[in-house]
């Protein structure tokens, strides 16, 4: 299968005559995908930024065992990098997991995707993983199933994967070079032996690539996740991106290493740092020339339940679920109605957007001068509009406005991944944290902003703006960018204030 080159750089956008606001945003990238892939991903909250606002995914922790060790993982705790809960978090037996999924799906009709991602490697626990998939495919055919794996035993399970409703597999591929791999994977368990260092990494890489090829040959969608580790694989990930694209992966998601000494991981303990927002964005841009890049991954916890950044997990503890009486065939009818309504809304939005695209491109021809790109942060609860109070935002969406249009860059969380507890430092106030995650942005758009953060934001070179509450995100960004252009603020590289910050 050949993948079209999906490019979201400004130059490409201009070449194709598209200078519209949506150019390069994820849903627009989807527009370049072949129809059969687009259909599969369109209502998948992990793959489509648009769908993120309307549909939800959930994960169940049924797979505790792992067959490799990564330097960013400590089996005792939740893993921030591979979005999996630690082995000490609530582990489900397959029957419990199925019950939980049915209960959630009947309560939250937007839940369309069920993933198994851990806490270990799903394919190192094939009985548990496939027992869960098998009974869900039978009882809840309207739920898509997906699985994340390190790839080591992937080639052994392709037939089983192809059997169920599983059309998405995520492989974490951090390298294609065993010398790089030796710095990431201290050992693997392979054919009844523990194999350390380069030799183990070489086997892992070979299995990952083989698994990728076999999945693509079966028509199963493959997303590749990579953890960006500065000084270890950062310079190597562009090659990874090219390689997996050539083999037919449809999406590449580069995630920043999350590494703190308190996590007790090798990287945390040896002072290996994660990338800055800037470094991550640069790499994502670099890879995007070769590959469809994913930018809205929130590295959600593998046992989270809900829409967007929310977690409604506490409504679905095992004792509450046991007490629920779920009639799934009935629930499925209600779900189908909700899904149809959402599909209609998405379609009408798409049509509206297309109309606007044409308008803007006509305007675009009136050639505005080249202006420098500006990063803006958005506080939103979802729905594609600016509707969150600055102080309530637990994350910001980052967009880049430039003469080529507006493109989505990614999410930045203001709340640390560790949710309280004795491993979290609380030396920083919430505002300090927000200032830090907004680094590089020149504007923050929110529905409302209090008096207190105003000064510190301005001092940091970030203009707070509450004037576009309830407006569509991209429209508001374009309006602000235009104001900045008119005010002559788009010619200079950076103003004095920012240099000082």
């Amino acid at each position: 299968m050949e993948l079209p080159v999906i490019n979201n750089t400004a130059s490409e956008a201009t070449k194709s005559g598209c200078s519209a606001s949506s150019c390069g945003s994820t849903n627009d990238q989807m527009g370049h995908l072949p129809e059969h892939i687009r259909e599969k991903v369109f209502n998948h909250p992990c793959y489509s930024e648009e769908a993120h606002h309307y549909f939800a995914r959930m994960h169940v922790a049924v797979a505790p065992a792992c067959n490799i060790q990564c330097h960013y993982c400590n089996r005792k705790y939740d893993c921030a990098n591979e979005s999996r809960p630690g082995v000490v978090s609530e582990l489900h037996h397959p029957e419990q997991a199925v019950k939980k999924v049915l209960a959630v799906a009947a309560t939250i009709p937007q839940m369309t995707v069920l993933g198994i991602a851990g806490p270990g490697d799903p394919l190192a626990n094939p009985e548990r993983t496939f027992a869960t998939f098998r009974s869900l495919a039978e009882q809840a055919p309207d739920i898509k199933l997906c699985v994340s794996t390190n790839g080591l035993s992937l080639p052994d399970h392709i037939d089983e994967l192809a059997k169920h409703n599983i059309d998405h597999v995520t492989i974490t591929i951090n390298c294609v070079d065993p010398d790089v791999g030796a710095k990431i994977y201290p050992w693997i368990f392979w054919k009844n032996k523990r194999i350390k260092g380069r030799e183990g990494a070489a086997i892992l890489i070979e299995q990952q690539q083989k698994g990728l090829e076999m999945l693509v040959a079966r028509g199963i969608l493959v997303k590749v996740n990579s953890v960006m580790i500065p000084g270890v694989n950062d310079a190597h990930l562009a090659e990874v991106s090219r390689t997996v694209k050539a083999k037919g992966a449809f999406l590449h998601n580069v995630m920043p290493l999350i590494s703190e000494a308190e996590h007790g991981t090798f990287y945390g303990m040896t002072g290996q740092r994660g990338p800055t927002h800037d470094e991550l964005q640069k790499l994502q841009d670099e890879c995007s020339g070769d590959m469809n890049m994913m930018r809205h991954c929130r590295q959600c916890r593998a046992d989270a339940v809900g829409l967007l950044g929310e977690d409604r997990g506490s409504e679905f503890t095992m004792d509450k679920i046991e007490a629920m009486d779920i009639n799934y065939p009935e629930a499925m009818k209600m779900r189908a109605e909700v899904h149809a309504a959402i599909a209609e809304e998405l379609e009408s939005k798409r049509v509206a957007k297309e109309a606007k695209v044409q308008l803007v491109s006509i305007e675009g021809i009136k050639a505005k001068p080249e202006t420098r790109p500006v990063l803006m942060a958005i506080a939103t609860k979802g729905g594609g509009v600016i509707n969150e109070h600055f102080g309530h935002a637990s994350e910001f969406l980052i967009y880049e406005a430039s003469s080529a249009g507006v493109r989505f860059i990614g999410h930045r969380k203001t709340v640390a991944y560790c949710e309280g507890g004795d491993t979290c430092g609380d030396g920083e106030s919430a505002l300090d944290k927000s200032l830090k995650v907004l680094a590089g942005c020149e504007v923050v758009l929110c529905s409302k902003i209090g008096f207190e953060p105003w000064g510190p934001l301005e001092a940091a070179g970030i203009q707070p703006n509450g004037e576009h509450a309830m407006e569509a995100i991209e429209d508001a960004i374009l309006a602000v960018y235009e104001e900045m252009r008119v005010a002559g603020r788009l010619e200079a590289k950076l103003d004095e204030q920012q240099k000082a910050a």
Partner: protein
Amino acid sequence: MALEIIESCVNCWACEPLCPNQAIYEAKPHFLINPDKCNECAGDFADSQCATICPIEGAILNADGEALNPPGSLTGIPPEKFAELQAAQQAARHGA
């Protein structure tokens, strides 16, 4: 001759299906090895399977009470560093 699983086990289930003698069983607060069934994999594998896949240093001991995966052997984290972290976390817990 039998191996033993001790309290640092994190209940990850990795060892259980690998045992050729079904000597490993789920228990609270952690997995255990039935010493009457465990023969250290003699005749089946060159390496004790449980200790070969176990990700936790020090969780499995041999008959002499020695860790089959001593500190630092699996993670590469120098044992002193790890001790430091544990001390710091303990202090934080008691302080809180």
